[in-house]
């Protein structure tokens, strides 16, 4: 059982990290064992990353201590991770790990960084105490889409489906395992990668051109949206039942964020990378994905 400790401090440079041997790892993990859950009035973590020292990130490599997640953060005497916001058994473990007797000192970590750590830790302590632990307000909640599909990335993100289905499959909620192409099954495949060519191809597939949808859900079926990387590719989004949009980029996993990492309330205004042309909204029949392996798109 070994652990890797990363000093989370830099912004531009890679953070320094060291791997401890079995004995040191066991000692440190003993100190880090969760003792009690933090109370609501005790400092947590800032809701947004701050510049400078932000704690130590501990990774358990190989066999792990079950009481602690595979990856977690240590700040002062507190440990944070999945299901974890606890005071550690050794309340001074943070000081120990950045102090003179720390195994980090024996590792090949920039000594100027090590010397600054106590001061940096104090600064971060002040930030934690003063931070208004509030999530930023959500400016609005998009209107729900009664007939929209549920956001269930887990169904798509499995080896038997993920690589063989693309954005068009996902947006239309129609698994074909053929990397579906607009119009191919209808014998009217697009001839160029432009709104004017891919749009009619999708309509030939039975999608409903709804240029005036203005991000509002149709009364029947789902709402999808088509964008174009001019002369290179097309991409599709779908609006979910909760009103937010999601998408699947090629054979990669389904996601609900844009290129800036933001949730998508309207794909017209999302960061779409090179897919600079927003074409239009389309209505889409409310298929369910489970039973579509023999349908019209499968070609």
């Amino acid at each position, binding site marked *: 059982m070994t652990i*890797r400790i990363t000093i989370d401090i830099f912004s531009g440079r*890679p953070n320094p*990290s060291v791997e401890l041997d079995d004995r040191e790892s066991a000692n440190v993990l003993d100190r880090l064992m969760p003792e009690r859950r933090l109370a609501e009035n005790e400092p947590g973590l800032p809701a947004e990353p701050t510049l400078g020292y932000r704690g130590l990130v501990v990774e358990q490599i190989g066999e792990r201590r079950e009481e602690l997640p595979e990856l977690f953060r240590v700040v002062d005497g507190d440990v944070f991770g999945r299901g974890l916001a606890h005071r550690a058994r050794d309340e001074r473990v943070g000081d120990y790990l950045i102090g003179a007797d720390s195994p980090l000192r024996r590792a090949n970590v920039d000594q100027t960084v090590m010397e600054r750590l106590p001061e940096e830790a104090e600064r971060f302590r002040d930030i934690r105490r003063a931070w208004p632990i509030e999530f930023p307000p959500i400016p609005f909640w998009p209107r729900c889409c009664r007939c929209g599909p549920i956001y269930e990335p887990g169904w798509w993100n499995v080896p038997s489906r993920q690589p063989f289905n*693309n*954005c*068009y499959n996902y947006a239309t909620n129609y698994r074909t395992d053929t*990397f579906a*192409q*607009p119009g191919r099954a209808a014998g009217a495949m697009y001839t160029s*990668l432009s709104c004017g060519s891919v749009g009619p191809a999708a309509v030939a597939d039975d999608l409903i051109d709804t240029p005036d949808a203005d991000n509002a859900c149709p009364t029947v079926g789902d709402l999808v949206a088509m964008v174009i*990387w*001019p*002369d*290179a*590719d*097309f*991409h*599709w989004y779908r609006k979910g039942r909760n009103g937010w949009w999601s*998408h*699947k*980029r*090629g*054979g*990669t996993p389904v*996601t609900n*964020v*844009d*290129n800036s990492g933001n949730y998508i309330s309207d794909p017209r205004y999302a*960061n*779409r*990378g*090179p*897919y600079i042309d927003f074409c239009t909204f389309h209505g889409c029949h409310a298929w369910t994905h489970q039973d579509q392996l023999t349908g019209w798109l499968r070609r």
Partner: protein
Amino acid sequence: MDTSRSADWLAKALVFSGRPDPAWAVPGSVAEELLRLWSELPSSTDRQPSPPALGYRGCLLEAPDGRTWESFGGQVTLKDGQTTESRGDPGRSFERQLLATAPANTLPPFFSN
């Protein structure tokens, strides 16, 4: 390592969403050169950089035996079954050399590597 079966070495640019990603064959001699380059890169324990949601996400070299070398954001990662090994490539020389093997008009317009 036998790299003589040139037609079996494949490259792919991970870039599209709707269309299949562009793929092309890599000559065995070029693959051998890329593997030599990879073997000289320093080991890296950094996390793999996250590609953007849409757009270019790196490129990939696939060997006849199924091993892959995926390059993005200054890292090249070898995947061999369940095992992975990453090497740092801050100058992105592996990535650039691999993409340079793409035949004309294979990569999309405005493609900058």
